[in-house]
C-alpha cells in the first residue's frame, strides 16, 4: 500500500486498527473490513491532497462502510434470489462530507482481539491474525519474524479467516462464563508471539519492529481491560523487557547477561510505565504467576547502575513465591541462577542436577546455566560439554556469540 509510506502513513497507522475493528464487527467479516478499508485509503490518497479532514478516522470509516455496502449490493444483485427479497441497503445515502467529518466510530478493538485470538484457531493462526489485523504488520514482516516463507503466512491468514467465517466464531467480547478461558487465549497468544520477538537479543535482526508492536498491543489491552491483573502483569513484563533491549547486546554483537547489562542504557520511560502497570496489577491481586514474573523484571529494572548490587536475594524470594504457586522445572532452573549468587554455585548445581534431564534437553538455558555453574565451581573441563550442547540448539546470533566466547574459555 503506497499510502502507508507516504505523508498519510502516520494517520493510517494510528487509526487503521480502530477503523478495521469497527468495520469487522459491524459486518462480521474480516476480509470485507480489510477490502473496504483499502478502498477508503485509496480514496483518501486521491482526495486528501489539499489537506486531511478533521476527523480522519470517521472519514475513513464512513468511506469504507460505503464501499463495503456497494460490494454487498453488487453481490446481492449477482445472486438474484436474494436481491429480490432483500431491500437494497442505504441506496438513498448521498455522500455527505460534513457527516463524514463528525461521525464518531466505536472502539471495537477488544472485540477484534478476541476474534483473532479465539482458542478454536491454532496458535500460529492466532498470532499471524493478531499481528496482521490488530498490529497492522505486513505478511512479509510476519514471515520474516517467524522464519517461514511468506506464502505460508498468507495461507495461515486465509485459513484462519475462513474458519472464523464458516465455523461461526462470534464477533463478541465473551461473557462471564467464557471470560477466563478466552482471556487466557489472548494472553497466551501475546506471550508466544513476544517470546519469539524477545529471543533475538539484538532486536535489530529478523524481529526488528516486532517487540514494539507487542508493546503497543499490551498497552492497548491494559487500557481496554484496566481491571484485569493478568493483563496488567503481562503488559508490565513486556514494558520491562523492551526497556532493556538497548543493553542486551554488546558492540561486538554478543548477548549481555542481565546482571552485566548497564542500567544506564535501559529506557527509563518504559520502566516507569511498567512500574505503574505492575502497581495497578498488585493493587488488584496480591499474587499470581504473571504478577510475580513481572515482579522479577521490575526488581531488575530498579537497578540504577552497575555499581549497585544486583537484586539477587529479592529475585530469589520471588522465584520461591512462584514455586509455591506452581512447581515448574523451568522456574526451578531460573531460581537456581539466583541461588548461585545468594548461596553458592554448588547449592545451585545440586538443584539443577535434580531436574528431569530428558524434559530439559531441548531447552537451551538448561545447558547454559549448567555450564555456567560448572565453570564457577571450578569444573571448567566439564563445562565445555553443556556449552556445546547449548550451541547445538541453534541459538540466535547474539546468544551464540556469547556461548562461543564461554566455550573458548573452557577449552
Amino acid at each position, binding site marked *: 500500500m503506497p499510502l502507508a509510506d507516504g505523508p498519510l502513513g502516520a494517520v493510517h497507522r494510528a487509526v487503521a486498527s480502530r477503523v478495521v475493528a469497527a468495520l469487522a464487527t459491524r459486518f462480521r467479516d474480516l476480509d470485507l473490513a480489510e477490502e473496504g478499508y483499502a478502498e477508503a485509503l485509496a480514496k483518501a490518497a486521491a482526495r486528501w491532497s489539499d489537506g486531511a479532514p478533521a476527523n480522519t478516522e470517521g472519514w475513513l470509516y464512513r468511506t469504507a462502510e460505503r464501499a463495503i455496502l456497494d460490494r454487498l449490493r453488487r453481490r446481492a444483485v449477482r445472486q438474484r434470489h436474494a436481491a429480490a427479497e432483500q431491500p437494497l441497503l442505504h441506496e438513498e445515502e448521498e455522500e455527505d462530507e460534513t457527516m463524514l467529518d463528525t461521525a464518531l466510530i466505536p472502539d471495537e478493538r477488544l472485540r477484534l482481539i478476541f476474534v483473532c485470538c479465539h482458542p*478454536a484457531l491454532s496458535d500460529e493462526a492466532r498470532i499471524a491474525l493478531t499481528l496482521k489485523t490488530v498490529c497492522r504488520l505486513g505478511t512479509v514482516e510476519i514471515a520474516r519474524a517467524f522464519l517461514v516463507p511468506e506464502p505460508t503466512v498468507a495461507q495461515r491468514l486465509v485459513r484462519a479467516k475462513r474458519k472464523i467465517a*464458516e465455523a*461461526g466464531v*462470534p464477533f463478541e467480547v*465473551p461473557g462471564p*462464563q*467464557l471470560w477466563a478461558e478466552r482471556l487466557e487465549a489472548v494472553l497466551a497468544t501475546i506471550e508466544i508471539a513476544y517470546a519469539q520477538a524477545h529471543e533475538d537479543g539484538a532486536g535489530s535482526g529478523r524481529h526488528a519492529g516486532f517487540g514494539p508492536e507487542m508493546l503497543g498491543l499490551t498497552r492497548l489491552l491494559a487500557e481496554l481491560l484496566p481491571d484485569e491483573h493478568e493483563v496488567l502483569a503481562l503488559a508490565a513484563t513486556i514494558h520491562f523487557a523492551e526497556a532493556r533491549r538497548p543493553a542486551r547486546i554488546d558492540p561486538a554483537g554478543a548477548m549481555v547477561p542481565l546482571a552485566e547489562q548497564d542500567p544506564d542504557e535501559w529506557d527509563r520511560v518504559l520502566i516507569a510505565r511498567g512500574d505503574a502497570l505492575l502497581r495497578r496489577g498488585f493493587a488488584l491481586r496480591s499474587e499470581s504467576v504473571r504478577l510475580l514474573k513481572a515482579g522479577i523484571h521490575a526488581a531488575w529494572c530498579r537497578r540504577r547502575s552497575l555499581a549497585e548490587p544486583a537484586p539477587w536475594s529479592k529475585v530469589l524470594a520471588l522465584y520461591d513465591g512462584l514455586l509455591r504457586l506452581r512447581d515448574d522445572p523451568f522456574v526451578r532452573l531460573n531460581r537456581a541462577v539466583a541461588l548461585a549468587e545468594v548461596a553458592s554455585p554448588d547449592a545451585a548445581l545440586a538443584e539443577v542436577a535434580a531436574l528431569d534431564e530428558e524434559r530439559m534437553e531441548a531447552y537451551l538455558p538448561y545447558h547454559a546455566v549448567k555450564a555456567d555453574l560448572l565453570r564457577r565451581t571450578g569444573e571448567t573441563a566439564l563445562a565445555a560439554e553443556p556449552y556445546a550442547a547449548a550451541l547445538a540448539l541453534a541459538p540466535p546470533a547474539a546468544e551464540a556469540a556469547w556461548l562461543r566466547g564461554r566455550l573458548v574459555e573452557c577449552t
Partner: protein
Amino acid sequence: MQYALLIYEDESVYGDGWNEAMQDVIGRHVAFGQKNGPAIRGGQGLHRTAQATTVRTTGGQQSLHDGPFAETREQLGGFYIVEATDLDEAIAIARQIPIAKDGAVEVRPVMPAPEGAAG
C-alpha cells in the same frame, strides 16, 4: 447456524454391547437431551465399528470393506445436530456431552442445504 457434534470414544469401554458403562452413559445422554432440548435438531448413537461396512471408491472403481473407513484409536460412536447462534454456543453444548472415559467431541459447522434440496 447448525453444528454437528461428532462423538469419538474408544468403543471398547462399552464392552460387547450392554454393560454398565453403556447404561450409565445413556442415562446421561437422556439428561443432556432434556437440558438442551430446544437446541437439538437430531442425533443418534451408532453401533460398533465391527458392524460397519465401508464402500470405497478408488479411480472410479467401488469396493466393499468390512469395518470402518479407517482404524483409529477412537471411533465415531454417535452425533448430535444442534442449532446455535455461534461457535461459542455450540462449544458450550459440546462440553456437556457425556463421555464414558476419555474421548473427544468434534464441533463441525453444517453447510446450509442448497435451495430446493430436501431437509
